[in-house]
């Protein structure tokens, strides 16, 4: 039976069922389904003055868009952030808030 072939979801493009692997499997890659930041209605905005650099938002972010190293202030990758608001909910210092995107 077919082995995984490391193609990403966005680039499958097979011409015959004989070529496809047995199950769809993809390997990690950046934004395999496109710039998901376009889905956002509200964006999380970080107040660096209040942030204590604990990294909890980084741990909880389901999309891995918090760029953080221990002891640093996180940066948000808005190309892929869908605006789910989990980082705002878990921030112990209320350093993050959701702001409506402009039309």
């Amino acid at each position, binding site marked *: 039976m*077919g082995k995984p072939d490391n193609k990403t*979801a966005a680039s499958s493009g097979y011409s015959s*069922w004989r070529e496809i692997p*047995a*199950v*769809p499997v993809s390997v990690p890659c950046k934004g395999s389904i496109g710039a998901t930041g376009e889905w956002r209605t509200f964006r999380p905005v970080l107040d660096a003055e209040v942030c204590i650099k604990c990294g909890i938002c980084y741990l909880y972010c389901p999309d891995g868009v918090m760029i953080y190293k221990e002891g640093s202030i996180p940066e948000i990758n808005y190309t892929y952030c869908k605006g789910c608001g989990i980082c705002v909910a878990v921030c112990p210092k209320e350093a993050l808030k959701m702001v409506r995107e402009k039309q």
Partner: protein
Amino acid sequence: MKNEQGKEQTIIMSGNYAAAWGAKCSRVNVVSAYPITPQTTVVEKLSEFVDKKELDANYIRVESEHSVMAALVGSSMTGARSFSATSGQGLLYMTEMLHWVSSSRLPVVATIASRGIAPPWNIWADYTDILSIRDCGWIIQFASTHQEIFDSILMAYKIAENPEINLPYFIVYGGFIQSHTSKPVRIPSQKIIDDFLPPPPKAGWDHINLNPDNPITHGNLVMPEQEYLDFRFLIQDAMVKSKEKIKKTIQGFNTEFGRDYKGLVELYCCEDADVVVIAYGALAEQNKIAVDQLRAKGQKVGSLKLRYIRPFPTDELLELFNGVVEVIGVVDRGTAFGNPTGGPISTEVMSLLCRARRKVKSLPCIWGIGGRNVTVEDQIGLYEKLLRIKNKNEYPTDETCQHGTVWMGLKIGA
């Protein structure tokens, strides 16, 4: 009771214990199950095997059957040989995850001690549970003796783990009638079993392998114009192709272990039979006695046992229909409300009649629902009904025949 490397031993055990022994002798790596009558003693026995270190497996306790199958999706994706067992409502509860297993092409094996579906509560033999999930992409085999339950588990892993198949596998038997009665079961030496069924590949399955060092995403979103349709076709293709692998595996097993299992169907006195009853499970086994008694009186009758319903034994049934048979009866111990016949398997069997080269008459029957007793005399009664169709073209007209199907035992007053 320890099954060491040495000799074959014969142990008197229940059908459920035969299932537990089958899993143990297959050296399963992971068991996850939730107790439900009449399956409970399968998992009790397995937890005892694990506790006493007679089986080197992880036993994962969970809060529901849905989680049982979810746990086995994970375990099987790491390449672990994975086992479960359930019944009735438990099987229905795990239905969503059954698709996750088959569509991820994971060779999980599970035994089902079939019982009636509630409400009203019923815990006795009735195959409506397994028949309700017959289209989930699992191979479905009925085991009609205790020995067959044990042996089938060994064969099931061999078939399911074949890289050209990679489909999960159910082995089904009737609640209480088989699960809780005791019979002698021959347990071969572990060495012969290990030779027949080696452990799964250490590196995991070729097609899907959960490994933290090489992360993957599985079950991805596939857009309509991508290959969702094609992945579905591959499952149907594997189902059809599994027929040859099943037959070959059974032949190999028979040679190695000195058994006499047939292929997808088992024919009994069908070569010259005018009238054949098609059934599955223990009722089909008991049907042979009715055939013997009628043959002794000179009636040319036969019995066909469906050993598998997924994949469906299409060729075998067409061969029967293209032979000499004039009338078939099809017995369902299960219901499919609103189906053309009210019975799931009779509908499928009768759908093949239009592909036969000859005209064959048929009578669908619903029997033994909710554990209602079916005696040999009852089965002889069905043959007599079928013989009246053959000899006089007389179909049953009494009240037990409703909407073209005989509801055996339907209470119709004095």
